[in-house]
C-alpha cells in the first residue's frame, strides 16, 4: 500500500510510514510526506547499502575527517589538500543523454566546491551496449554514447575544469541503458577547508539557479527501475551559471565570508537542509516564499524537492553577509536569504510564516535501514565451469588486429579529444598517453588518477571481479610512478530487492573492504546506485573503482611508450584465466569461464617491485596488463613508442594450456616494463622473494613490426606497428560514420 501525499504518490512503504509516525509522535502532513519520500529514496538515504558501506576502511594517515564532509579529503603535504568524489547519472542519461551527463558533471563539481576546494580535474567512466554493427540496439547505443560524451564535454569545457581520464566499456547488458559515472578532484589549502562550524542566528543563503519544476523527484526516479521516459525528472544543465557559482564560491572562501557550504543536489532543498542540520548539529528555520523561483505557483513541496541545477546553500553571519552579497553581485548571481540557524536540531519549513513541515533532522536524514535478503544466483556456478573453445588458432595476426579494434580496447581519442583536458596547466600525463592521468598540484608533487571497471568479470564473479578492478586501478596509477593513497568506489547494481542482485552487491563491498584493508589504502569517497535495470533486464554488477596516487618527484613520472634499445620484462604470472576476458566475450562471443583471481600478497609484491624500479630510475616505460591481455599491452607500448618489438612467448612465466590463452589471458597483477639497464633491473627484481618475472624480449632496430615467437622459434604474430595503430583507431571511424 502506498500513502497519499500532497502532490505526488509517495514511495514510502508501510514500515517507513509507521516509523515516521512513531518518531514524529503525530500524523505527518502531506507536505512532510512528500519531503520524506524524496529524502528516504534509495538514492538519497542508502537504506539498503548503508550497513555494508559502513564496513569499508576509511581511515589513513592522510585522511582528514570533519563535520559534514561530502567529498573525501586527503593531505598531500606542504599545506595542500585534495578532495575527491564520484557520482553517477545513469537514469537521466539513459533518457536524455546530453542533459543527464552534463548535469552529472555539474553535481560532482559542486560537491568539490562544497569542501572549499577548486575542482582541477574531471574523470568519466562510461558503459554502453555495443556500438558495432547496424542493429537498432547499436544505433541507439551510438546515439547515447555520442550525446553523453558531448554533454560531459560541453559542461566541463565551459567550466574550465579539464576532463583528464576515464574509461569506456561496451557490453550487451547495457542495452537501452548506460552508466555514466563522473568523478572530480579538487585542490586547496588546508587552512581554507570549510570548517562547517555555525552559530545560532547565522544566515542561510541559497544562490545560483532558480528553483523550478525540472528534476522533481529525480532521486526517487533514480530509485526505481527505468520504465517510462520520465523526462521531467531530468534536470537542465547551465554550465555558464555553474562557472559563475564556482568563481563566486572560491572568492567567498578566499575572503573567509562563508561558514558552511552545501550543494543542493539529489533530493533538492529538503535533502540539503536536513543533511546540513544533521551534520552541523543545528536547527534551521526556513521560509520557502523567499526562495527565488523559475515557475509561478509552485507548491511548498515542489520547492522543497525540486532538483533544479546550479544551486548552492551558504551559511554566513550578519558581519560577513555584505561581503558575500557583494561577491554574488559581482558575478550577477541571484541569491535569497531563506532562513536562519537555530539551536535545536530541527528543520522547520514555513510558507508565508506558517509552519508546513517540521522534523528533527536526524529523522529526516536517516531513513530506517533495511535488511535485504541475500541469495547466491545460480548462474555463477554454471558459468564458472571451464569449457573448450574451438581449436587453437595458429596465426594470431587477425585475432590481435580484431581485438585492437574492439571498441572496449581501441584508443579512446574520439572521446578525449572532445574534452578540454589541458585547461588549468596541470595535465602532465594527458589522456591516452599514460596508464593513468597525472596532474600537478602546487607543491611540486603530482596526483595520478584513474577509474576502472569490468562488468564482464564482475558478472561472472563479483568478488574476484571487484578485486580485479581495484588491482587494475591501483596498477594504473603505479605505472605512472605513483603510490596509491586513496580509493573511490561507485557501486552500480540492479534492484536491491532481488536477493540475487543484492548478493552480488555484498560480494563487491566485501572485495573492497578486504583489498583496501590488506593494501592499507583508505576508501575516501563512494556512492551506491541501485535499480539500474530496464524492462530488457538487469545490468551486470558494475562497480567502478577510482584510484588516486601521489607522485613525489617529476622524474618518477612514467608513460608506456617503449624507447629504442629497451629490453622488455614482464612482472607477474599468467594463467588460463579467460572468463570475462575480451578475447572470450568480444572475439568468441562466450560468457563464462575462470575469472582472473587477485592474490593479495602477489599483488602487493609486484606493485612494490615496480615502484622500486621506477624510483631507482631503472625503467623507461611501464604498462599495466589488463583488458585484452599481454598481446594488447605490448601492442599499445609499441604504438606509443612507434617502435617494433620481438617477444619470445616461451619466456613468459605462465601455466597456460594454449598460446592464445597466454597472449589474451587477463590475469591480474601483471606489469610490462621497458629498460635500458636489464642487468640492474634483473638484479633488483631478484631481491623480491617469490616474485615472478622474466626478460621476454626487446625492441627491434631492423624493422617496425611487433613479433611474437613461440617455443619452436616460429613467428606466430608479425604485424607492422602502423597497421596496429590504424586498427586501434576503430572508435573514431565508427563514431564518425
Amino acid at each position, binding site marked *: 500500500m502506498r500513502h497519499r501525499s500532497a502532490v505526488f504518490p509517495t514511495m514510502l512503504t508501510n514500515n517507513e510510514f509507521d516509523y515516521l509516525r512513531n518518531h514524529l509522535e503525530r500524523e505527518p502532513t502531506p507536505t512532510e510526506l512528500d519531503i520524506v519520500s524524496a529524502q528516504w529514496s534509495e538514492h538519497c538515504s542508502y537504506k539498503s547499502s548503508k550497513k555494508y558501506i559502513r564496513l569499508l576502511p576509511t581511515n589513513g594517515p592522510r585522511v582528514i575527517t570533519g563535520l559534514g564532509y561530502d567529498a573525501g579529503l586527503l593531505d598531500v603535504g606542504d599545506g595542500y589538500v585534495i578532495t575527491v568524489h564520484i557520482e553517477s547519472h545513469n537514469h537521466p542519461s539513459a533518457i536524455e543523454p546530453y542533459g543527464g551527463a552534463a548535469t552529472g558533471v555539474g553535481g560532482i563539481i559542486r560537491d568539490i566546491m562544497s569542501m572549499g576546494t577548486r575542482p582541477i580535474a574531471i574523470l568519466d567512466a562510461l558503459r554502453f551496449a555495443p556500438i558495432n554493427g547496424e542493429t537498432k540496439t547499436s544505433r541507439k547505443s551510438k546515439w547515447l554514447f555520442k550525446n553523453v560524451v*558531448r554533454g560531459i*564535454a*560541453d559542461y566541463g*569545457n*565551459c*567550466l*574550465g575544469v579539464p576532463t583528464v581520464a576515464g574509461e569506456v566499456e561496451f557490453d550487451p547488458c547495457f542495452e537501452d541503458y548506460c552508466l555514466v559515472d563522473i568523478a572530480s578532484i579538487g585542490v586547496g589549502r588546508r587552512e581554507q577547508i570549510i570548517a562547517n562550524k555555525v552559530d545560532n542566528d547565522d544566515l542561510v543563503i541559497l544562490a545560483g539557479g532558480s528553483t523550478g519544476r525540472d528534476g522533481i523527484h529525480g532521486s526517487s526516479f533514480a530509485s526505481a527501475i527505468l520504465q517510462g521516459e520520465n523526462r521531467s525528472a531530468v534536470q537542465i544543465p*547551465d*554550465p*555558464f*551559471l555553474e*562557472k*559563475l557559482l564556482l568563481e563566486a564560491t572560491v572568492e567567498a572562501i578566499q575572503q573567509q565570508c562563508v561558514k558552511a557550504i552545501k550543494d543542493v543536489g539529489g533530493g533538492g532543498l529538503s535533502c540539503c537542509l536536513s543533511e546540513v542540520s544533521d551534520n552541523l548539529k543545528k536547527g534551521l528555520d526556513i521560509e520557502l516564499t523567499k526562495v527565488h523561483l523559475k515557475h509561478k505557483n509552485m507548491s511548498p513541496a515542489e520547492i522543497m524537492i525540486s532538483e533544479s541545477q546550479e544551486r548552492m546553500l551558504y551559511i554566513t553571519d550578519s558581519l560577513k553577509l555584505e561581503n558575500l552579497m557583494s561577491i554574488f553581485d*559581482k*558575478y*550577477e548571481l541571484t541569491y535569497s536569504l531563506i532562513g536562519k540557524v537555530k539551536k535545536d536540531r530541527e528543520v522547520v519549513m514555513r510558507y508565508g510564516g506558517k509552519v508546513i513541515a517540521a522534523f528533527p533532522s536526524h529523522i529526516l536524514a536517516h531513513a530506517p535501514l533495511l535488511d535485504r535478503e541475500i541469495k547466491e544466483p545460480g548462474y555463477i556456478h554454471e558459468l564458472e565451469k571451464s569449457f573448450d573453445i574451438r581449436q587453437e588458432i595458429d596465426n594470431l595476426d587477425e585475432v590481435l588486429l580484431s581485438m585492437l579494434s574492439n571498441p572496449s580496447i581501441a584508443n579512446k*581519442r574520439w572521446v*578525449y*579529444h*572532445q*574534452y*578540454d*583536458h*589541458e*585547461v*588549468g*596547466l596541470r*595535465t*602532465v600525463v*594527458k589522456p591516452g*598517453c599514460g596508464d593513468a592521468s597525472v596532474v*600537478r598540484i602546487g607543491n611540486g608533487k603530482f596526483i595520478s588518477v584513474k577509474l576502472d571497471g569490468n562488468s564482464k568479470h564482475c558478472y561472472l564473479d563479483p568478488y574476484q571481479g571487484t578485486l580485479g578492478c581495484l588491482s587494475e586501478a591501483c596498477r594504473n596509477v603505479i605505472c605512472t610512478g605513483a603510490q596509491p593513497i586513496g580509493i573511490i568506489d561507485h557501486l552500480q547494481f540492479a534492484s536491491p530487492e532481488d536477493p540475487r542482485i543484492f548478493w552480488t552487491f555484498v560480494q563487491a563491498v566485501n572485495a573492497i573492504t578486504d583489498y583496501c584493508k590488506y593494501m592499507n589504502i583508505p576508501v575516501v569517497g563512494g556512492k551506491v546506485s541501485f535499480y539500474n535495470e530496464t524492462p530488457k533486464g538487469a545490468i551486470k554488477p558494475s562497480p567502478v573503482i577510482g584510484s588516486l596516487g601521489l607522485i613525489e618527484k*617529476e622524474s618518477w613520472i612514467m608513460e608506456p611508450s617503449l624507447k629504442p634499445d629497451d629490453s622488455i620484462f614482464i612482472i607477474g604470472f599468467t594463467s588460463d584465466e579467460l572468463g570475462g576476458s575480451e578475447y572470450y566475450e568480444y572475439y568468441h562471443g562466450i560468457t563464462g569461464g575462470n575469472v582472473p583471481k587477485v592474490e593479495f600478497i602477489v599483488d602487493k609484491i609486484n606493485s612494490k617491485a615496480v615502484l622500486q624500479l621506477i624510483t631507482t630510475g631503472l625503467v623507461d616505460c611501464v604498462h599495466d596488463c589488463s583488458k585484452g591481455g599481454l598481446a594488447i599491452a605490448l601492442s599499445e607500448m609499441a604504438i606509443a613508442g612507434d617502435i617494433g618489438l620481438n617477444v619470445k612467448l616461451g619466456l613468459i612465466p605462465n601455466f597456460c594450456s594454449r598460446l592464445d590463452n597466454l597472449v589474451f589471458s587477463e590475469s591480474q597483477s601483471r606489469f610490462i616494463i621497458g629498460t635500458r639497464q636489464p642487468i640492474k633491473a634483473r638484479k633488483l627484481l631478484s631481491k623480491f622473494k617469490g616474485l615472478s618475472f622474466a626478460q621476454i624480449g626487446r625492441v627491434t632496430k631492423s624493422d617496425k613490426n611487433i613479433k611474437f615467437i613461440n617455443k619452436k622459434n616460429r613467428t606466430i604474430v608479425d604485424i607492422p606497428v602502423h597497421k596496429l595503430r590504424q586498427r586501434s583507431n576503430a572508435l573514431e571511424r565508427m563514431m*564518425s560514420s
Partner: protein
Amino acid sequence: MQSSPNCGKVPKIGIVVFPGSNCDRDVHYVLNNILKAQADLIWYTKNKISYYDAIVIPGGFSYGDRLRAGLIAAHSPIMGEVKRMAKDGIPVLGICNGFQILVESCLLPGALMMNNSLNFVCRWTTVRVHNNKTPFTIKFLKYQKLSIPVAHGEGRYVADDEVLEDLEKKNQIVMRYVNDDPNGSMNLIAAICNQEGNVMGMMPHPERASETILSPTKSSCTAILIFHSLLSYLLKKL
C-alpha cells in the same frame, strides 16, 4: 605609445576577464611565474585600463558562448576601451575565445565558425610562423614551426575572397596549421593580425605550451616565444 607609470621599467600586461573566461589564470601564471613579467587580471567592469602596456584577452567561454562565441563580450564597455588602445598601437593579443571576441569586435576581419568535424577538439598540432614582424612573433624565425595545442569548438577561420586576398597580400596571416589542420580553417589560418600588426588573434593556446613538462613529448616549448616576443617588444618601446 602612451607613457606608463612604469616608464623605463617593467611593462605591465592586463588580462581581461569576462564572466566565463577560463584561461585567464593560466595566462596570468605563465606571464608572472614563468616569464616573471607583471600581469594583472582585469574584471570586465573596470573602466580605466589605459594604464597597461599590452592587453591579453584569454580563452574560455565568455557568457557561456550564448548566441555565438565572443559576441556578448564584444559588446561590453571594456571592449570600447580595448579598441581605443588598439588604435593607439598598444599590442592586443586574443587567444581562442579572445580571438573570437576580437573578430566579433571587428578588430580583426573574418569569422570563426564551428569546426568542420562539428565537435570540440582539444589536441596538440603544429603551426608555422609566416609573419615574424608582429609584437608577438619577433623572436621567431620566418617559417619557424612550433608545437602547440588547440581547444575549441568554433575555430574554423572563414572570410570572403576579398578579405583573404587582402590578408595574404598585407602579410596579416601570422600562423598557419602545418599538415594537420584541426578545424578546417580557410588557407589553414591559425592566427591573423590587423594591418598595423599590433592586434593578433590566434586559436591555439600558447600558455599551454610554455613549459616543457606540459608538452606531450616533453620537448622544448617554442610557443613561449610568443610571450617573449611581446615582452621584448614592450621593453624596447618603454
